[in-house]
């Protein structure tokens, strides 16, 4: 984990870079300031699918090298079709399961296990950072809140992330979701 103090310099007109930097800052808030435990199951699932696909391709390459083409036909058919099926599964996984979630944080409050999921998206050529924060408690209920703010709120003129603004923003959302729960 990089030190939070380390000043990262990004070009805030590069939407993807700004989004990644803010995502990283928010992840740090959850694992650092809010003392949650990050759960890697979601991202590990994606890494597994990617690794499997690359593995299948490497296997096909090796097999075709050892047993030149007409012999390797059957293995190639199996590898090629499973590779493209895996690519399809990966696309479904990222669009319907991951949905841009960049951090899943687990937290134990009393005897209640709460899971926080933060996802974000940025439209092309737009300076608005959209953050969706979802909290699921142990009983399976979920609550969500979203904010839509310009990059300029989180990044100063030098292109460095203003960490305490991010901390305040996330803590505010965190508290509002947590307290909403107590009211009911």
């Amino acid at each position, binding site marked *: 984990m990089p030190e939070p103090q380390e000043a990262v*310099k990004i070009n805030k007109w590069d939407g993807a870079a700004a989004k990644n930097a803010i995502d*990283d800052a928010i992840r740090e808030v959850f694992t650092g300031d809010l003392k949650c435990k990050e759960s890697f199951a979601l991202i590990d699932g994606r*890494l597994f699918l*990617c690794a499997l*696909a690359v593995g299948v391709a490497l296997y*096909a390459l090796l097999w075709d090298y050892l047993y030149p*083409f007409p012999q390797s036909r059957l293995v190639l058919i199996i*590898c*090629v079709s499973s590779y493209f099926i895996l690519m399809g599964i990966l696309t479904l996984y990222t669009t319907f399961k991951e949905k841009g979630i960049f951090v899943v944080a687990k937290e134990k409050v009393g005897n209640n296990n709460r899971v926080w999921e933060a996802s974000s998206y940025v439209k092309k050529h737009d300076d608005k950072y959209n953050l969706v924060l979802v909290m699921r408690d142990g009983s399976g209920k979920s609550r969500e809140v979203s904010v839509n703010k310009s990059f300029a709120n989180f990044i100063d003129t030098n292109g460095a992330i203003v960490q305490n603004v991010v901390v305040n923003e996330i803590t505010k959302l965190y508290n509002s979701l947590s307290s909403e729960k107590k009211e009911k």
Partner: protein
Amino acid sequence: MLDSLFDDVKRMNKRQFIYQVLSFGMIVSSALMIWKGLMVVTGSESPIVVVLSGSMEPAFHRGDLLFLTNYPEEPVRVGEIVVFKVEGRDIPIVHRVLKLHEKNNGTVKFLTKGDNNSVDDRGLYAQGQLWLTKKDVVGRARGFLPYVGMVTIYMNEYPKLKFAVLACLAIYVLVHRE
């Protein structure tokens, strides 16, 4: 400048870095799997070739891209353009079938010649080889795209250019997130 190039990479955690490497791997794998898929569909070990010489002019010129098929049930016929390998030569040759002998048991032997050459190909074949057989055939030309393959020819003539282009692409993919 170079420092900022790798900033993205430096800021990544372990999983982000693994994903970065894997997505690079998937770009390469996708190209590889499309190629292998074409091999299976066309039955040819090299479904797309680039014409390297002018020996088939005016039918094909240097740099034309050829699409090949090699279905075992389709017989080779005189007048067809075949791509074949010769022992001791790395690069396959694209020439037209000139003479063909077919036996009752299905074995064939044939002789080829380039349209633009004044003599047949016996001089090009391996020492002592007079005829080509089915196992020498890489595929038969089914379609072509004129001059698209010139890029490949330039890349092969100037290997430094090829490596430079490939290295730039690889670095770009590896250091940029998303």
